[in-house]
C-alpha cells in the first residue's frame, strides 16, 4: 500500500496547486479559461473523494464528462431489460444498474416485486447463474466502455466453448472517442482540454486521442486515478494551453501504452462491431457503440428475444444531458438534492457512485 500513499502526498499537492494557480492567472490575464473535462467516471469519483475540485484555483474548473457507463445508459435499455425480466428471464447485472430509471421503473423495484434480477460482481457471475439454472434463460446486461467490453466478450467466448446455450448478452457498449467528437461538435459546449480516462485508455491506447489534438487543437492528457495523478494532469494541460502547444501526453505510461492492449482489441474485434448507439442525454451518436457481430447473434439478447433498446422516455425535469456535456454542474439542475437524491434518483447521473450528480451530492453538497 506504500504505492497508494506515495500518490496522495499533501506537500506535492500543494506544489502542484501553486504551479496551477500561476498558470491559471497568466491565462486569465489574457481573458482565457482553463475548463478541463474529466471524461471518465472513475476520475469523477476520485476527484470528489479526495476533494480535488476544492483545491483548484478559481481560474481552473474541472467538468465531468460522459464517461460513467451507468449515467449514459438510455431509459430504453432499462425498459428492454425489464421486458425480458417480465418474460421470466433471469437478468444478471452489475449492481449499479439496479437503480437506473427506465421510462417507468427500475430493476430494483422490479426485483422487489418478484422478478429475478441478480447482481453480479463480474460477468462470470452470469455464467454461474446460467449453469445453475439450465432450464432457464439468463441475460447479462453488457454495458460499459472499452474496459468492461473485453470481460463480457470473454463471457461469450467461454459460454460458446463450454456449450452454455441459455446465456445471452443485452449489449449497450459505448466508445469514448465518438462521444468526445460529439461534445466538440456542440457549439454550446466549451471545453479547453480533456483529461482522458485511465483504464479505457489502457485498452484503446493513448493514440486514440490523437485526432482530437490534431484536428481540433485541444490538448489531451491521459492520467491515472490517484489524486496527484489528476492534479498533475490538469497542471500539464493548463501549461499546454498557456504555451499554445496542444499535445497528447500520457501520464499513465505505467499502465497505458500508445497502441493499447492489442490482445484485448483483437478479441473485441472478433466478436463486436461498431454500431450506432443511444446515449442518455446526448442522443443517438453514429458508430459510438459496439454490438455483437452477426455470427454471434445467438448470444445477442436483443435479437434472440426480439426486444428493442430504442425509444424510451425520461423525466423531462432531468438535466443529465447538460451535466454530461459539462454545460452545467449538478447543483445547477433545479431538482438536484431536492427531488433528485441517491435514494430517489430521477436521472442516471444520480445513481452510480461515479455519476457526477451522485459524486456532488455525496461529497460536496453545501445545504
Amino acid at each position: 500500500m506504500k504505492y497508494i500513499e506515495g500518490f496522495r502526498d499533501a506537500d506535492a499537492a500543494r506544489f502542484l496547486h501553486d504551479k496551477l494557480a500561476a498558470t491559471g492567472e497568466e491565462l486569465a490575464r489574457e481573458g482565457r479559461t482553463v475548463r478541463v473535462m474529466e471524461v471518465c467516471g472513475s476520475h469523477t469519483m476520485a476527484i470528489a473523494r479526495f476533494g480535488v475540485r476544492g483545491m483548484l484555483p478559481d481560474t481552473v474548473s474541472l467538468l465531468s464528462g460522459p464517461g460513467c457507463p451507468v449515467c449514459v445508459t438510455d431509459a430504453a435499455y432499462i425498459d428492454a431489460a425489464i421486458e425480458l425480466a417480465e418474460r421470466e428471464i433471469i437478468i444478471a447485472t452489475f449492481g449499479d444498474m439496479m437503480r437506473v430509471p427506465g421510462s417507468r421503473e427500475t430493476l430494483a423495484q422490479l426485483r422487489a416485486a418478484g422478478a429475478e434480477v441478480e447482481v453480479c460482481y463480474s460477468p462470470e457471475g452470469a455464467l454461474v447463474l446460467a449453469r445453475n439454472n439450465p432450464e432457464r434463460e439468463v441475460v447479462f446486461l453488457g454495458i460499459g466502455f472499452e474496459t468492461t467490453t473485453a470481460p463480457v466478450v470473454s463471457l461469450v467466448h467461454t459460454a460458446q466453448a463450454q456449450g452454455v446455450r441459455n446465456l445471452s448478452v443485452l449489449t449497450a457498449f459505448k466508445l469514448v472517442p465518438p462521444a468526445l467528437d460529439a461534445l466538440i461538435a456542440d457549439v454550446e459546449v466549451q471545453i479547453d482540454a480533456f483529461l482522458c480516462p485511465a483504464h479505457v485508455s489502457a485498452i484503446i491506447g493513448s493514440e486514440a486521442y490523437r485526432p482530437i489534438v490534431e484536428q481540433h487543437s485541444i490538448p489531451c492528457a491521459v492520467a491515472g486515478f490517484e489524486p496527484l495523478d489528476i492534479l498533475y494532469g490538469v497542471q500539464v494541460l493548463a501549461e499546454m494551453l498557456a504555451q499554445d502547444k496542444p499535445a497528447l501526453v500520457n501520464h499513465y505510461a505505467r499502465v497505458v501504452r500508445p497502441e493499447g492492449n492489442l490482445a484485448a482489441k483483437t478479441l473485441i474485434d472478433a466478436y463486436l462491431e461498431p454500431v450506432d448507439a443511444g446515449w442518455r442525454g446526448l442522443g443517438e451518436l453514429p458508430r459510438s457503440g459496439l454490438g455483437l457481430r452477426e455470427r454471434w447473434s445467438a448470444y445477442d439478447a436483443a435479437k434472440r428475444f426480439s426486444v428493442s433498446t430504442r425509444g424510451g422516455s425520461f423525466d423531462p425535469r432531468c438535466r443529465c444531458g447538460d451535466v454530461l456535456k459539462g454545460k452545467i454542474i449538478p447543483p445547477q439542475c433545479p431538482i438536484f438534492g431536492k427531488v433528485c437524491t441517491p435514494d430517489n434518483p430521477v436521472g442516471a447521473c444520480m445513481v452510480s457512485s461515479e455519476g457526477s450528480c451522485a459524486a456532488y451530492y455525496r461529497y460536496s453538497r453545501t445545504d
Partner: protein
Amino acid sequence: MTTRKILLGHGGGGRLSRDLIAQEILPRFGEGPLAGLPDGALLEFGGQKLVFSTDSFVVHPLEFPGGNIGELAVHGTVNDIAVSGGKPLWLSLAAVLEEGLDLALYRRVLDSVKAAARECGVQVVTGDTKVVARGQCDGVYLNTAGIGVSIEGFELSQGAVRAGDQVLVSGTLGEHGMAVMAAREGIAIAGGVVSDTAGVQRLVQAAAPFAAGVRFMRDPTRGGAAAVLGEIVEDTSIGILLDEQAIPFSPGARAIAEMLGLDLLHVASEGRMILISAPECSAKILAAWKALPEGENAGVIGRVSEDAGRVILTTAIGGRRLVDIPRGELLPRIC
C-alpha cells in the same frame, strides 16, 4: 416512502433503513425506552439498571476469514449492550435452520458461539431451534437477545456531544464488511483481509474510569463509521471534522475497497467502537485502550465542530469532502 415494497436496501443500515424505522416502527413503539433508538434499551427493574438488546444475523457466506455467523451473533448483541454502557451477562440464542444443512457446519457455528460467549463473559441461558424447508432460508439464521447491567457512571446521549469533543475509534475500520464481500465474491488478495469480529466489552470497561467524560459510544456495524457519525450530527448544530490520515485502516481492507470503489467509512466492522469524549479525557481513554490488544490501533480520528449537520473529511492530499450517510446496499462500481 416512495416505494410500496421492501427493497434490499431497507436492510443496509443507511438512509433507507432509517426511514423505514422512522416511518413504521417509531410511530408504533417509539414511546418509552425505544425513543431515540439506542443500541440497547435502558430499563429500571427492582432498583437495578438493566440493558436489554437483540439482533438477528444473516450472513453469506456463513463462514468467512476470521469467523462465522456464530461468533457474529454473540458479538453483535454483546457489543450493543456494551456501547450502551452495560456489562453483558446473559444471552438467548435462536436458530432458524434450513433443511439439508451440513451438521458439521452447524457444530462449528455452535462451537464458535460457545467460545465467543466465554471470551465475552456471557452465558447462553435460553434458546430455540426451528427448521424450515430447503430454500426458505439461507443455511442458518441466528438471533440473540442479551441482558446486561448498566455500568456505574456512564451518562450517554447523542445530545450531550458538543463542539470541541474528540472522536476516537478503537481500531481499524471496515475489515468485517470487506472480509465477507471478498469471501462472497471470491476476491483473493495477497495478505488477505480478516473479519474484525470481536467483543468490545473490555474497551468499554477500560473507558469506565473516565465515564464522566464519555458522551457517546457506538459500534460501527452496517453503514460503517459514516452512518454512526452522520446520525450524531444530523439535524443538530454540531458537525464532525475527520482527518483521513488519522483513521486506521488495514492494508488488506484498503486494497479491496479500492478495487471495488467502496468507501471504507461506509463498511461494517463487528469488533470496533467509536467513542466521543470530552477533550480532557481523550488522551486517557486512548492510553487505556492502547494497553489492550484489541485497542492496539486505536486513535483520535477527528473532533466535533460547529459545522452544523455535516461530517467533513480532510483528505490525505489536503482536500476536503463531505462524508455522507450511505443509502442502502453497498454496490461495487462497474469499472
